[in-house]
């Protein structure tokens, strides 16, 4: 049975402009939460949320006859749009520290780490990288320039690679 989100996305894929407003009512707070934890600057966050919905509209044809994965599609777009502004507002990059550790036990993340066998330390790194989105660490380096972090990035990349084979 199709959910309300499925219906809205189907309408968007059929170029129903009013469905964008319905999607905004249903998911803007959630997507804005992701954006605000990726870029802490309010100007950048506003721009990124604007881009998220216009990118959804621009990419609507890709959801034609697609029946699942809408939530991930929306989150991926929001995260990408937040990243678009990371160089614009470097002094105010968000921090994964602001992600309450209690939230890390959400079912979606537990399923994600279990499904792909991501170790706890690597998961911590991944969450940090996902939300810091390019933030420099205390030593002034990107995490990928730290040998340990680079190893973790490599392991995560390998785990992703296994899903493609």
């Amino acid at each position, binding site marked *: 049975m199709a959910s309300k989100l499925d219906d809205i996305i189907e309408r968007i894929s059929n170029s129903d402009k009013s469905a964008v407003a319905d999607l905004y009512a249903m998911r803007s707070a959630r997507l804005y939460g992701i954006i605000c934890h990726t870029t802490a600057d309010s100007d950048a966050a506003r721009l990124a949320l604007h881009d998220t919905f216009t990118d959804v509209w621009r990419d609507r044809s890709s959801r034609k006859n697609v029946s699942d994965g809408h939530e991930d599609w929306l989150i*991926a777009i929001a995260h990408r749009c937040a990243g*678009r502004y990371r160089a614009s507002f470097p002094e105010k990059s968000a921090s994964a520290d602001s992600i309450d550790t209690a939230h890390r036990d959400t079912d979606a993340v537990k399923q994600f780490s279990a499904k792909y066998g991501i170790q706890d330390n690597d998961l911590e790194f991944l969450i940090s990288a996902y939300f810091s989105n390019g933030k420099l660490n205390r030593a002034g380096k990107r995490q990928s320039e730290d040998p340990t972090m680079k190893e973790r990035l490599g392991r995560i990349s390998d785990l992703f690679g296994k899903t493609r084979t």
Partner: protein
Amino acid sequence: MSDKGTHLQMLAMSYVLGQTSAEQQAEAEALHTSDSDFRALVSQIELWLAPLGNLAPEHEPPIGLLDEIMLSIDDGGTVLNTPAPRAIRKAPTASRSFPWRPMALAASFIALVSTSMHLLPSGQTMPAQDDLLAMLSNGEVNAPLVVIIYDPVSKSVVAHTAHADLPIEQVWQLWLIREGNDAPRSLGLLERNRDQAGVSLTINQNLTTGTDTLAISLEPQGGSPEPGPTGPILFTGQVKSLGG
């Protein structure tokens, strides 16, 4: 997986997570522009990582933003605005009204079209129908306006200004923002020709309608010291065909 495949996968993962060095970033952006397989790989990683987004608690979005979004989506099914350049920095005095964003209503945009045609100096040949036109405004009514006409044969652009003068101690730099590209590409500096009323520039780049937007930023003499704009974005406008 081959070494190359492993490298590309690692590069794409670093790219999505914002963990690239400057050199890696340049490589990733070049691949993202030119290689559809790499773009697909990036999209797959973005989707793979999406469950992490569930960690962030909800946040009430800004008031009025929905109206701006709906205005950006025209009834013809296209998006009137463009993504802001990835590397644009906030100008020190930038207002919170995002002046570089082409938030103009469709009505005022059409008005600019008819106005622009009167900006050509008398005696100048009207552009051919194959020429492309970009009208760059800051989105305000009666605001400074730049009309740029692109000749695809000579790859030259000629800019005409209304209510706007080129700066003296700084320069205007022209940028191409293309759908599918993550970063704006510099097309050069707009410097007034002594013997012409307009501002001309030869660009090593084909422009196309539908995907391209031009932007002008205010930069120090010699242009932006970085790959992207460092000064405020003064004007933006989509590239359109004069032939309609």
